[in-house]
Each structure stands twice: as structure tokens, then as C-alpha cells.
């Protein structure tokens, strides 16, 4: 008797717990899904509207295309600078620095990568006011990305088993030879995946860029330097039906780029290849 009631009591508790969990999960996921859904539907409609009516709205689609190109150039340039620097620093912290120095570097990088990204924009703004916006934008993004790259790459490199490193050293290989022949190839896929995640995170980053731009131009939507996240921001600030359309089109493009980079990262990181 007691045993049966104990069992049902437990079942009841279990069911209650599971339903609470599902409710919380839905609360977390549903708004996100609805956001994705509205961006998807309205974004497609907006793109069709903008690019389907060349005469009246050609200007809007041109702005959009130029924003896209600027986004890609800015991202590519900052990646090209931040990745080699960051990976080199991670090689140092994971392979050369002693235990204490390695810990210190990690601690500093953790703090830097935790700072609000708008700070890197401010730093560049203060240091370089007057430099062309694109260059300042690239620098701000590099500054923002660098600690994240160092930390991610360091994590991947530290995970390379010491057994392989010692196996190489025991063959009379130097440290540098060991890094290129054993450490980097062993880390390979994981390293590329980690770096792609950093790229995806950076593509949509607006804050560092907002600061360094000439405020007036940004908010009037006719600035020279306007990568996608910023275009999105300025179009929103503008109001009106065309700009409403632009916002959705831009959001969709941004989303597509980020999804593509994440997808690439997942594909590279798959273990069965």
C-alpha cells in the first residue's frame, strides 16, 4: 500500500517538474522563434519589394547593397588582422608561457573579452579621431575581437595532448617545429571552428562601430561608411514605410550571413569527416 502511494507521489512530482521545465523552455524559445519568423517573412517581402521596383526604390536597394559590401569588407579586413595576431598570442600563451604567465594572460584576456564591446569603439574614437571611418571601424572590431580570438584559440591549443607534444620533442624537434608539425595540425579542425564562431559573433556587432561614426550622418542614413548593422540602426531611426522595409531586409541579410558562418563552423567541426 505505502509503496504504491509512494510511487504515484513520485510520478506526480515528476510530471509537475517536467511540465514546469517545458513551460520555461517555451517562454525562452517562443519569442525567439517569433522574432526569426517575422524577420524571415517580412524580410523576404521587403527584399522582393525593394529589388522588384527598380525605378521608384532603386536608391534604397543601392544603399542596401553598398551597406552589404561595406559589411563584408570591414569584417574581412578585421578578421585578416585579428586572426593571425590572436592565434600567435594563443600559441605563446599555450606553448611557451610558464604556468603562472599563462594563467595571467588568460585572466587578462577573460577580462578584456568580457568588457562591453562599445568600449573598443570608444578607445579607437579617442585615439584616432579624424581617420577615415572604415579604417577606424576595422580597428575597433580588431580590438573587440582580439581577446576573444586569443582566449578561444588558447583553449583549443591547450587541449592538444601533451603526449603528442612530448612525442615530437623526443624526436629532437624544436618547439617551433613541434607547433607546426604537431600542435596546429592536431588542433586543426577545432581551431578553425572556434575562429569561425568568433567571426559569426563579430559580423553582427554594432556597438564598437556606432561610437566612431559621425553621428549626424549615421542617423540620416547617408553616411559614407555604413556596414549592415549600422544601416539597420540608422534606417530604424529614420522611420517611414521605405525604411521599415529596409530594416527587415537588412535584418534578414544579417541573419543569413550569421547563420551561414555558424553553419560553416558546425560543418567544419563535425567529427565524422
Amino acid at each position, binding site marked *: 500500500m505505502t509503496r504504491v502511494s509512494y510511487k504515484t507521489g513520485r510520478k506526480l512530482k515528476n510530471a509537475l517538474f517536467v511540465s514546469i521545465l517545458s513551460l520555461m523552455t517555451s517562454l525562452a524559445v517562443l519569442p525567439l522563434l517569433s522574432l526569426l519568423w517575422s524577420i524571415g517573412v517580412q524580410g523576404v517581402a521587403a527584399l522582393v519589394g525593394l529589388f522588384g521596383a527598380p525605378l521608384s526604390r532603386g536608391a534604397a536597394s543601392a544603399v542596401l547593397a553598398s551597406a552589404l559590401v561595406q559589411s563584408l569588407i570591414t569584417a574581412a579586413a578585421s578578421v585578416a588582422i585579428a586572426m593571425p595576431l590572436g592565434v600567435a598570442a594563443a600559441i605563446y600563451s599555450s606553448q611557451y608561457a610558464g604556468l603562472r604567465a599563462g594563467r595571467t594572460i588568460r585572466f587578462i584576456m577573460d577580462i578584456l573579452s568580457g568588457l562591453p564591446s562599445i568600449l573598443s569603439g570608444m578607445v579607437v574614437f579617442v585615439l584616432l579621431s579624424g581617420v577615415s571611418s572604415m579604417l577606424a571601424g576595422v580597428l575597433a572590431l580588431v580590438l573587440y575581437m582580439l581577446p576573444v580570438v586569443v582566449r578561444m584559440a588558447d583553449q583549443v591549443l591547450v587541449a592538444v595532448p601533451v603526449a603528442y607534444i612530448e612525442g615530437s*620533442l623526443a624526436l629532437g624537434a624544436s618547439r617551433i617545429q613541434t607547433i607546426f*608539425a604537431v600542435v596546429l*595540425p592536431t588542433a586543426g579542425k577545432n581551431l578553425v571552428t572556434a575562429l569561425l564562431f568568433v567571426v559569426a559573433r563579430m559580423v553582427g556587432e554594432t556597438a564598437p562601430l556606432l561610437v566612431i561614426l559621425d553621428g549626424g550622418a549615421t542617423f540620416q542614413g547617408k553616411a559614407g561608411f555604413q556596414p549592415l548593422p549600422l544601416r539597420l540602426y540608422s534606417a530604424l531611426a529614420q522611420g517611414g514605410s521605405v525604411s521599415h522595409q529596409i530594416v527587415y531586409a537588412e535584418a534578414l541579410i544579417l541573419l543569413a550571413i550569421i547563420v551561414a558562418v555558424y553553419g560553416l563552423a558546425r560543418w567544419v567541426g563535425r567529427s565524422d569527416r
Partner: protein
Amino acid sequence: MGKALEARGVSARFNEQVILREVTLQMPANQVTAIIGPPGCGKSTFIRCLNRLHETTPGATLSGEVLLDGHSVYDMDPTEVRRSVAMIFHRPNPFPTMSILDNVAVGLRLHGLRNRARLAESAEQALRRAALWDEVKDRLHLYSSVLSLGQQQRLCIARALAIDPVVVLMDEPASTLDPLSTLVIEELIEELKRQYTIIIVTHNLQQAARVADKTAFFLDGEMIEQGTTTALFTTPQDKRTADYVTGRFG
């Protein structure tokens, strides 16, 4: 041919912790010297001092002398020392990103040999000496992970032999292997000592008795007793050695 190795007053530390105290030991050319002792007594640390691998660990320091054929290895370039004094680790560690062939050839390649034919030839020779050639000759271009653990350990031996060392250090080379693979490795050691000086760390007293000409007993970072394997096992001079080899502790 193998060359004699000699440790003189070798002490080793990790930060402030003393791991080895004044170890002096002669390891004659073309003989197998076994190092035995309970876990944590410093056997691995000792042989890692012999090829200067100890100093690559953060916080590791040492003092004393190691002589290879009369020349102090601590006066040589560490990479040169490790080319002459090869090492086999207790867990097989072939490079996972390389093929079987590349695993064996990588040492020579790192030392500047580029000629593909010469590389393949040296690799074959090393694989034959490690008694692995017949088992892998048809799949040289597969990843080393297709091999059994025992084969992987012999691959590591081939990788070490390919760069023509004079001494081979083995840190419990069969401790992760099944009895049959262990037997294969022991037979190989018997064969290899004609060309190389061999120092083997082992937990397995029967293994030491089977393969070693000379045995040294370590306890708590000190070398307690050394001698011919027969003498050490049958007429130990120190009570602690006697207790250990008769299985009363450790």
C-alpha cells in the same frame, strides 16, 4: 652501435618539491638496464632527465651530470641529445593527423631530409627493425588509428628508430598492452639491444627479470641498489630491495 649512458648525482625538482636525490647509475652500452620501484618514486622523472625532456615541463629543474659516451648531454643542444637518446612512452602516442608512413618519416623530415624515396626507404627499414613492416606494408597511407594498441606502440618504436638513435629509453612500454603484445615487445627489446643501449622502466618484476641485464631499484627519489638482474633479484644487499623484489611492499 649503442653507447654507454651514465648519470652522476642527478637531482630533479618540480618547483620546490624534490623528486630525485643524487642518483648515480651506469647504463652500459648494448645492454638492457631496467629501472624498478613503487609508483611515484621518480622512475619516469629519472629517464626524462636522460634525454633532457624533464626540463621542458614548466617548473622542472635539475642538477648533476648525464654523460653519453663520456660527453655531458647538458653541454649539448637539447634537440641533438634527443636525436641520440630516443624515448618510448607508456601510452602509445603516434601522431593522429599523420599516416603510418608519415609517423615514421616525420623525424627525418624534421631533421631536413626531403627526398621521398630516401624517406620511404628509411621508414621501411625502421618498420622492419620494429617488427611491424609485414603488418602495415599494405596500408602505409592509412591513419595510425587503424592499428591495434600493440601495433601503435611498435609504430612509436619505429618512429624513434628511424632517426638512428644510440640509446632507447622506454617508460613502461608495455603497461597498456595485452599479454601477447607485451611478449612481442619483449622479444623486440631482446633483438634491439644488439644495436642500441636500452633503458626500460617497468612495474613488472617478471618483465625486468626476463629482459634486463642490469636492474636498479628506486625508492622515494633515491637509487637504493643496482646490479646485474640476477644478483638484484636473488641476493639483494639492501633490506628495502629484498622486501620489494619479494613482493612485501609496492
